[in-house]
């Protein structure tokens, strides 16, 4: 084969490259000498003959090079160039280090954030055909996505024509018997087809079978992979084991796949079918479920929504009491899961991308300056026979070497950053973003890294190549490295700095806005004193404490044990602690007020007598509960200020009666007090009207215990757990923490804080890079203008006017950069609007401070070169040329 023979010959040449070169050299010399002898015999002098022979022969270096290219492999040139590039970079370690460091920084930030975006938004959910899944819910005015009721679900399921499968789930907590006592565990209850709808098959055992969600079916549960791992030590005979949940022996029938997660529920270790209906599920007006459905082929989410809406309207007519105002909400399941975090991840990713851009621009500028300084070298190589393509290739190779180094380091740094960031996320938050745990340097992320590197190589080789194509060999050779700064550099280099500064402004404004928003968030009016509050969740077994009197008795016992603990000032319980979020609502109606039949949705909290004193809430009028107000006494209620304003405008609410929508006699409660608004909502939500019922009149066996302590919160937590265990070892406790911790780790605060940290970090780096870039440009400009400055000073220019000259140049660039940046950031801030709390995207304070900060930093950055310019000694400057 010809090609094979050619290849073998090439290999032969490669092995004997030195010999090849020597032989070629010898035969060319022979040729020239013969020619020269010929010319001599024609009567030329020795010297002239040699000259003529040489001219006739042509450029021997280039010819040698060409001959070599014929026989060499394509990659060899690249290898040579890379070796040369490395040598060049080693000769100038400052440049190489700066460039690689900047690239590493930019690439690492960009890749790490891309990995987050990938895990959250790009990677498909771990279900079969996840794009065909929809989240199905009811909808009321105050909750666009609110729970389904069990009976509504059954009607919807019967009447719908758009889904192939339609199932429901609800969160649940179980008390699990373990060798070390009873522990509360998180779980979920689902209709039997739930996992089939998702298309999830257990890796061990089997799925729930149709009909297993009836009260008569034997008790069964599926467990997650993590539970199998941590609680059961991966035992292979797990299927068929019995777990005692809430005192009921339950058979474990399977283990869910490792990659399975269901972010909407957060953490759920045990999944059981909805068998025994709880009190809520028996009433059409009580909503505690969410639906998951698979769309029929060809059916869009919009069509499905229309279908559900028409069913809701039908039910509204059929059951006006319970279903008035109950609409429908259908969204793609992925939207329900990541819709909230999408904007924050995108904003963070954009921040990182901007940082990378600024790093690239900075490195380009360095390369451009280098190209400028190496004009003479390039001209010389051109004159010695290097083709233009060959010179461009040299630049490309240098860029490639830089980018490869930067990418490799950046990839490593990104991996470290990803893991660090992931570890910094509190588990509570991670439970609701389980998809982040699957974050890795997968092919998508690596592909993105490749794309970024390619982009960088193109940008970096573009700059010097532009320089090269507009250069004039002869002029460059004559002028060499001296003389005025090249016009090309002036045109490109300084514009690049404007771009850099503008990006820095955008990032600074973004960071400023987020920090301000975070500050507002942490300083919202809470309506109580969050310091020195310790809290925990407790669950008492339903079987032992079934009757309300037993539950009341239990809580009295627990609280009296706690009150005598050292350091504890007050102890109380509530159904939901403050800052949990609006929800767990009830419908109210005021006796004696006109009623239009609408549902008046208000937060309901069941609290013990000392609750308000414990959290130091402020009484506006009337009184709080006493411990003796239990089922034997008339029913009472404390309302918050928002409820008083909304439902009793211009009236004294004390003494009025509040009841359910039907004003049934046993639902009526007398208002005995008005409390200042306690923030039940999460930090960024608005305050809703709320009613507080005495726990003793509305008891439960799940409680949140809160105590006010004079000591550090963490130090009393173990004693609290002990006190409860002493009352009854079968009571489970979990989530022991302080109120401050709870507020700081709440998803809203957490997301804002991490966004503030990340964007703040990006902005600080961008500011640094921008100012370094400006410094570089001005310093280079000064070095190029030394002669001009010398002449000016020799002609009598004052030092102050030299300062002025340089600072004016820097000032113009800064002003342009800041102006462009401010314009862009107003646009960018609108894009962030959704994330901001209490700050307008067009926040004058932020914009002004950023402009001032950047202006000042730029002044400092350009002052150093200006001083150098002003201290030029005219005699030296002129002589140096």
């Amino acid at each position: 084969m010809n090609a094979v023979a050619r290849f073998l010959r090439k290999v032969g040449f490669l092995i004997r490259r030195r010999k090849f070169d020597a032989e070629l050299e010898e035969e060319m010399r022979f040729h020239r000498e013969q020619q020269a002898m010929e010319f001599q015999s024609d009567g030329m002098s020795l010297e002239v003959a040699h000259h003529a022979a040489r001219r006739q022969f042509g450029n021997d270096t280039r010819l040698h090079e060409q001959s070599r290219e014929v026989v060499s492999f394509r990659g060899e040139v690249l290898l040579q160039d890379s070796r040369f590039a490395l040598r060049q970079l080693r000769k100038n370690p400052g440049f190489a280090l700066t460039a690689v460091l900047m690239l590493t920084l930019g690439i690492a930030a960009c890749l790490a954030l891309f990995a987050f975006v990938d895990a959250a938004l790009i990677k498909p959910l771990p279900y079969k055909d996840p794009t065909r899944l929809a989240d199905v819910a009811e909808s009321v005015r105050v909750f666009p996505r609110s729970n389904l009721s069990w009976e509504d679900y059954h009607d919807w399921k019967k009447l719908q024509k758009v889904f192939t499968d339609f199932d429901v789930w609800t969160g649940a907590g179980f008390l699990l018997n373990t060798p070390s006592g009873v522990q509360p565990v998180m779980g979920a209850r689902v209709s039997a087809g739930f996992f089939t709808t998702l298309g999830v098959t257990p890796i061990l055992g089997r799925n729930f079978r149709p009909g297993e969600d009836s009260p008569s079916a034997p008790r069964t549960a599926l467990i997650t992979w993590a539970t199998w791992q941590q609680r059961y030590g991966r035992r292979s005979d797990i299927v068929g084991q019995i777990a005692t949940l809430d005192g009921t022996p339950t058979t474990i029938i399977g283990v869910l796949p490792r990659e399975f997660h269901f972010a909407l529920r957060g953490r759920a270790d045990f999944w059981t079918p909805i068998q025994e209906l709880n009190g809520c599920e028996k009433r059409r007006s009580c909503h505690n479920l969410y639906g998951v459905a698979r769309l029929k082929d060809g059916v869009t989410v919009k069509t499905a929504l229309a279908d559900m809406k028409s069913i809701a309207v039908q039910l509204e007519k059929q059951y006006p009491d319970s279903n008035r105002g109950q609409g429908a909400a259908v969204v793609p399941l992925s939207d329900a899961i990541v819709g909230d975090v999408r904007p924050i991840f995108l904003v963070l990713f954009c921040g990182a991308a901007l940082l990378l851009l600024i790093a690239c621009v900075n490195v380009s500028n360095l390369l451009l300056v280098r190209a400028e300084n190496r004009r003479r070298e390039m001209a010389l190589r051109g004159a010695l026979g290097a083709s233009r393509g060959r010179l461009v290739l040299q630049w490309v190779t240098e860029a490639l070497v830089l980018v490869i180094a930067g990418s490799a380091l950046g990839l490593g740094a990104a991996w470290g950053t990803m893991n660090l960031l992931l570890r910094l996320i509190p588990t509570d938050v991670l439970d609701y973003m389980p998809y982040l745990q699957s974050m890795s340097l997968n092919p998508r992320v690596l592909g993105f890294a490749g794309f970024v590197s390619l982009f960088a190589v193109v940008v970096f080789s573009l700059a010097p190549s532009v320089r090269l194509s507009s250069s004039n060999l002869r002029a460059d050779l004559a002028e060499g490295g001296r003389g005025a700064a090249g016009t090309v550099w002036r045109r490109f280099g300084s514009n690049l700095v404007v771009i850099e500064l503008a990006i820095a402004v955008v990032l600074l404004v973004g960071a400023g806005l987020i920090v301000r928003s975070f500050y507002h968030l942490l300083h919202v009016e809470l309506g109580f004193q969050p310091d020195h509050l310790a809290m925990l969740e407790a669950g008492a077994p339903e079987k032992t404490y079934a009757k309300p009197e037993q539950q009341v008795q239990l809580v009295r016992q627990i609280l009296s044990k706690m009150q005598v603990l050292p350091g504890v000032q007050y102890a109380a319980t509530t159904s939901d602690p403050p800052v949990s979020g609006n929800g767990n609502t009830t419908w109210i109606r005021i006796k004696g007020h006109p009623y239009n039949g609408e549902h008046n949705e208000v937060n309901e909290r069941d609290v013990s007598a000392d609750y308000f004193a414990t959290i130091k809430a402020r009484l506006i009028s009337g009184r709080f509960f006493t411990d003796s107000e239990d089922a034997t006494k008339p029913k009472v209620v404390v309302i918050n200020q928002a409820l008083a304003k909304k439902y009793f405008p211009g009236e004294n609410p004390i003494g009025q009666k509040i009841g359910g929508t039907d004003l049934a006699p046993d639902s009526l409660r007398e208002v005995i007090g008005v409390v200042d608004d306690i923030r039940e909502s999460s930090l960024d939500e608005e305050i809703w009207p709320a009613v507080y019922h005495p726990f003793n009149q509305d008891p439960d066996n799940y409680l949140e215990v809160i105590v006010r302590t004079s000591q550090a919160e963490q130090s009393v937590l173990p004693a609290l757990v002990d006190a409860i265990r002493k009352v009854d070892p079968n009571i489970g406790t979990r989530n022991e923490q302080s109120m401050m911790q709870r507020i700081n780790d709440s998803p809203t605060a957490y997301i804002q804080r991490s966004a503030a940290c990340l964007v703040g970090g990006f902005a600080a780096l961008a500011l640094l890079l921008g100012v370094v870039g400006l410094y570089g440009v001005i310093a280079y400009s000064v070095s190029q203008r030394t002669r001009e400055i010398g002449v000016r000073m020799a002609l009598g220019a004052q030092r102050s006017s030299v300062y002025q000259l340089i600072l004016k140049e820097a000032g113009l660039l800064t002003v342009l950069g800041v102006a462009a940046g401010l314009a862009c950031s107003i646009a960018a801030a609108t894009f962030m609007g959704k994330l901001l709390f209490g700050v307008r995207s067009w926040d004058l304070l932020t914009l002004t401070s950023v402009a001032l900060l950047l202006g000042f930093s730029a002044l400092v950055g350009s002052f150093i070169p200006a001083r150098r310019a002003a201290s030029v000694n005219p005699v030296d400057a002129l002589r140096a040329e």
Partner: protein
Amino acid sequence: MARKTDLLPGTLDMLILKTLTRGSLHGYGIALSIKNLSDDILTVEEGSLYPALQRLLLQGWVKAEWKSTETNRRARYYTLTAAGRTQLSHELSQFEQMIAAITRVLQGA
């Protein structure tokens, strides 16, 4: 000064192969031979012979050998191989076809 005529592109390889049909020659000999045979009309930029020779070596159309010249200097002599002969006849027939076509066009116009 002699009139210089640039070679038709792609013909250098053919000229070298043809020159070598008379026997082995070194690079200088090939250049000389082309010049003389064309009555000084075809002058190659002499150095460009060498990249071309490497190409022919690589293709296996010629082979090279170091020998002494009549003046007792070391020089690399190139010899046509069998494959080179086939290639030459192939190129010649193509070239003739092309020339004939060009001639027809020029005369017909």
